[in-house]
């Protein structure tokens, strides 16, 4: 017996499982560890007969059972920090992705439905937003705003980030607008707003879940890049070390107190020398999260694609003529 071609949606399965895992960590991760993610370990530990102070010499992973993933470059438990870090990053990405979709859908609908001068104006805005690399725009905006709050990040990442969704929604609206049932609706006297709500929006719903997932992954990528460059939410303090020449303290880098994934990528140079495993582990987690969202989006897109020979229990069946 042959299985039907494409009867299993592996991307959707992988995407759901991985995203679900990250959602669980975001919701309950902080309860799975008894260690305070902000506690700096200052007690001397003995590894292979050598005495080590975690706050000075970070502990590598898999060496001590106390620190399964080792410590970060300030001597704090990396596993506990990771478990706490997922939640703020996900909240940030969700807020930004939701706002991007919201603005994108509104402006796209407006451009596709109204036409004329409005359409040309929105097209100009979309073109300009699409032309600027989002990282450059976000860096310049955050540097200008000078504060590292949620709202600064929202402004920096939403101000041009809505354009992709808008293009997509506009094209879809323009196609739907030509359909005979819109003409029919007009003929029986449905008002423009009613047409928008009852005939045009429902055509968009099936594509939105995939769009949200892709938007999440794009947001996370930019947030990670910004974190790598030292732009992250939350307070930061300057790490100091004794200067062998003068005897005083010199600044060697920035670090933060409350963990957040993007922020854990910052301070790359000192981590590269003192705790390279931290870069590898945090980098892998971020990659996994972007991968999860992309797989989810791809899976949802395939799931909603009616040209594929499958039927889902909740996809509306075609109207049967009796």
């Amino acid at each position, binding site marked *: 017996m042959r299985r039907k071609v494409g009867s299993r949606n592996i991307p959707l399965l992988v995407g759901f499982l991985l995203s679900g895992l990250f959602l669980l960590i975001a919701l309950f991760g902080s309860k799975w560890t008894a260690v305070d993610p902000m506690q700096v370990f200052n007690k001397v530990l003995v590894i292979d007969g050598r005495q080590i102070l975690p706050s000075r010499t970070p502990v590598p992973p898999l060496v001590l059972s106390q620190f399964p993933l080792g410590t970060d470059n300030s001597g704090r438990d990396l596993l506990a920090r990771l478990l706490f870090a997922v939640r703020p990053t996900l909240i940030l990405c969700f807020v930004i992705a939701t706002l991007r979709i919201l603005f994108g859908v509104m402006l796209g609908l407006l451009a596709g439905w109204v036409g004329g001068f409005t359409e040309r104006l929105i097209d100009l805005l979309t073109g300009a937003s699409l032309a600027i690399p*989002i990282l*450059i725009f976000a860096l310049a905006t955050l540097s200008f705003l000078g504060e590292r709050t949620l709202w600064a990040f929202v402004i920096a990442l939403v101000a041009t980030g809505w354009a992709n969704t808008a293009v997509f929604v506009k094209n879809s609206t323009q196609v739907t607008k030509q359909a005979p049932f819109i003409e029919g609706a007009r003929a029986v006297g449905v008002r423009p707003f009613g047409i928008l709500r009852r005939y045009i929006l429902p055509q968009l719903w099936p594509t939105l879940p995939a769009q949200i997932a892709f938007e999440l992954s794009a947001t996370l990528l930019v947030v990670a890049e910004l974190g790598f460059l030292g732009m992250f939410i939350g307070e930061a303090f300057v790490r100091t070390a004794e200067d062998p020449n003068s005897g005083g303290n010199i600044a060697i*880098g920035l670090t933060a107190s409350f963990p957040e994934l993007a922020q854990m*990528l910052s301070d790359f140079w000192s981590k590269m020398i003192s705790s390279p495993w931290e870069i*590898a582990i945090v980098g892998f987690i971020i990659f996994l999260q972007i991968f999860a969202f992309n797989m989810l989006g*791809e899976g949802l897109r395939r799931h909603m694609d009616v040209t594929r020979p499958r039927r889902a229990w909740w996809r509306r069946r075609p109207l049967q003529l009796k």
Partner: protein
Amino acid sequence: MARLITRKLILLIFFLPLLNYIGYSYAQLHPDLIHSPLGNTVSQDFEPYGTYLRGVLFAGDLGNVGQQTVSQILAGTIQNSLLLVGAALIASILGGLLIGLLAVSPRTRRISSAGLVVLTAGASLPGFLLGGVLLAGMVYLVFFTDATQTFLPISGYGLDEHLFLPVLALAIQPTLHLAKVVAGLLEDELQKDYILVALSKGLGWWRLVWSHAIPNMISPILITIGGSVRLMVGALLIIEAIFIWPGIGRIFLLAIGLRLDARPLGVFFGNPPLLAAIAVLLGAVLLLADLLFSVLAYQFDPRLRLAEDGQ
């Protein structure tokens, strides 16, 4: 065609002076420069935009940064950056097309699930993470084992193996993104009726793909490549910072006040003529790339030409 080029050129002529103005006033208005006692350049000391513009237009003088002129600083760095982006672009076009065409199975005419998982994974791998992890791994080997030298040069400029890691980090995501797009387009194209006709005539697989499917896919592919130029220019900032590549991205980071180490900012921070010149350059590269790939798409896809003429 002529209309398209004219429209894009008008956009270019309109946007570049605007970017110049935005870059200049950005630096003049930057709050850190106005309020912070630590900023070592005070923006209000710089000449107003009108004077600067007159200098540019009539004397060809792009302004000064410390002892150097802006054109001195930018001349070499542009070359280095273009070299890096060019190499990465060529690598990603060749690699993306090849991987994309190989990902579709001739038997089912669909992308295999495993292929899709691999392509999505590759397209989700940010280049700077890959670069950072490779760098950290190599440094780890030197520090914690008895290796005396890293396997590949990890930083600096050079036209030899120095290119390898930055190009890899810059090209990996655009390559697999392009591969994914190519595979998706090919899959859609292969479901159409004319492919069945071609198959029933007994055409071979590569003949089918090369002379029948590809000409129909060429314009979205070119537009995707144009988009990946934008991706690369964005990623260039961070890749140049990681691999200490002396290009325009590093100058830009310094100019908007970011350093990856905690040393004080140099004279580049918030220099209005410098930022104005960088804004114009980046804008010109992006708009010209957009122009080039749109023109190519029009050239190779007669349907677009017909649509334009029919209006």
